[in-house]
C-alpha cells in the first residue's frame, strides 16, 4: 500500500493550521509538534477526538479551543470507543443521505496513559470490530500533565515521581510494553512507528493511516522537556537520537507485514551507524542517576534490551 499523495514543504506550510497557536502546551512540547505535523496530512473533512491527557488539556482550556475542526474530548479510557461511535454515526448518516460529505476522516488521539494503560480495552475492541479510523498514540512516556507518573510506556530505568530513583530502585523497574506489536497482533491493516524528527516519514504514515480502509495505529515518540528533564530546544534532537540508537526504530506493518522505514533501514544495512544507547540517556535528566557507579550496570541492561528488541524487529522485517 503506497499513498499516491505527494507534497512539498510549501504545500504543508500553505495548508491552514488545524491545531491553532495559543494552545497552552509547555515551551518545546514534543506532542504539540507531533499534532501539528499529523494534521498536515489530512485530506478533507475530519473529526478529532482526544482522550484525557496533556494535549487535551492544553488545547481546550475553557473557554478556549485550539481546534479549528470538530473536536470531542473524552475520558481517559474510551477515546477509541468514541472514535468508533463517530465513525458509525457518520456511516448511518451517509446511509440516510444526511451526510453532506463523501467521506469524513476520524482521528483518535491519546497519550501513553490513555493507550498503554487506561484506554487499551476500548482500543482493542475498536480494532477488533474493524472501525475505519486512525489512532494516534503520542508517547511522552509518562503521565506528564498530572506530574510525571510512570505508565506502561515509561522505559526501564527512567525516573518518574512514582518510580523515583533513590537507593532502593534505579528508576522504573519494569519494561516498556510493546504496544505497537500488540496492535499488529490484532490483524489491523496498518500500524507504524514514527518520529517528528523524521517529519516527512511521519506525515506520509499519517496519510496512509487515513487512507487505509479499517483501523490504523500510529505510535509516535513525543519527548516532554519537563518530564524527561532536558532543555526545551532539544526536543527534536532527542527524537533523532532515539531513532539512531534504535531505542525507537521506525517501521510500518501493512497487513501484518513488517518493513523498516528509511532512517532505520540505513542502520540495518550499515550497523556501524547504530549509536550506543548511552548517548540517548545522557542528554536526559530522567536517566541522570544511571551515570553513577551504583547504577551504571542498568545502562548495560538497557542496551541489551534495546539490542534484543532491534534484532527481533530485524527478523520481522526479514533483514536479520
Amino acid at each position, binding site marked *: 500500500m503506497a499513498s499516491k499523495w505527494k507534497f512539498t514543504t510549501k504545500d*504543508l506550510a*500553505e495548508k491552514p493550521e488545524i491545531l491553532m497557536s*495559543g*494552545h497552552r502546551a509547555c515551551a518545546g512540547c514534543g506532542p504539540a509538534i507531533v499534532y501539528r505535523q499529523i494534521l498536515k496530512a489530512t485530506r478533507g473533512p475530519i473529526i478529532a477526538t482526544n482522550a484525557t491527557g496533556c494535549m487535551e488539556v492544553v488545547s481546550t482550556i475553557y473557554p*478556549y479551543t*485550539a481546534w479549528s475542526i470538530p473536536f470531542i474530548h473524552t475520558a481517559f479510557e474510551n477515546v477509541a470507543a468514541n472514535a468508533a461511535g463517530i465513525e458509525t454515526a457518520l456511516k448511518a448518516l451517509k446511509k440516510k443521505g444526511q451526510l453532506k460529505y463523501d467521506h469524513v476522516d476520524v482521528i483518535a488521539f491519546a497519550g501513553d496513559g490513555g493507550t498503554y494503560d487506561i484506554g487499551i480495552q476500548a482500543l482493542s475492541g475498536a480494532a477488533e470490530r474493524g472501525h475505519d479510523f486512525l489512532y494516534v498514540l503520542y508517547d511522552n512516556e509518562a503521565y506528564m500533565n498530572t506530574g510525571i507518573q510512570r505508565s506502561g510506556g515509561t522505559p526501564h530505568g527512567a525516573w518518574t515521581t512514582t518510580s523515583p530513583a533513590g537507593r532502593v530502585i534505579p528508576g522504573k523497574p519494569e519494561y516498556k510494553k510493546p504496544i505497537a506489536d500488540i496492535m499488529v497482533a490484532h490483524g489491523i491493516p496498518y500500524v507504524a512507528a514514527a518520529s517528528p524528527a523524521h517529519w516527512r516519514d511521519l506525515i506520509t504514515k499519517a496519510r496512509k493511516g487515513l487512507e487505509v480502509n479499517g483501523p490504523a495505529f500510529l505510535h509516535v515518540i513525543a519527548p516532554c522537556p519537563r518530564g524527561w528533564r532536558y532543555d526545551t530546544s532539544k526536543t*527534536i*534532537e532527542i527524537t533523532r537520537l532515539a531513532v539512531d540508537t534504535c531505542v525507537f526504530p521506525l517501521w510500518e506493518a501493512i497487513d501484518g507485514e513488517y518493513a523498516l522505514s528509511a532512517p532505520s533501514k540505513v542502520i540495518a544495512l550499515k550497523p556501524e551507524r547504530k549509536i550506543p544507547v548511552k548517548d540517548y540517556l545522557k542528554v536526559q535528566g530522567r536517566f541522570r542517576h544511571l551515570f553513577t557507579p551504583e547504577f551504571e550496570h542498568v545502562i548495560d541492561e538497557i542496551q541489551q534490551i534495546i539490542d534484543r528488541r532491534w534484532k527481533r524487529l530485524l527478523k520481522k522485517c526479514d533483514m536479520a
Partner: protein
Amino acid sequence: MTSEQKGWKEIPIAGVCWRPATDYLTGDWKTLKPVRDKEKCNKCLICYMFCPDGAVTWDPEIEDIGFNLDYCKGCGICAVECPKKAIEMVHE
C-alpha cells in the same frame, strides 16, 4: 426529577469551548526570542515544521518566513534545528 428541573433536551450541551485559542497570547511566556539572519536563511521551512506553536509563519505572497512573537514561547527548537544556523535566540 421535579418539574422545575430541566430535562436533557433543554439543558445546554456540556462544556463547549467557544473562544479560539488564538485570542490567548502565549508570547509573554518567553525569555528568549528567535532572530533570523536573512542572509543565511534559504527558506527551507524546517523551522516551520518543528515549531510546537505554529509561531513560524509562511507568507506565500512574498515567499518568506517570519516569527509570530505573540505566540512564540521561546523554546529554541527552530534555532537548534535550522540547517543554516540562521536563527539566534536572544534576550527580549
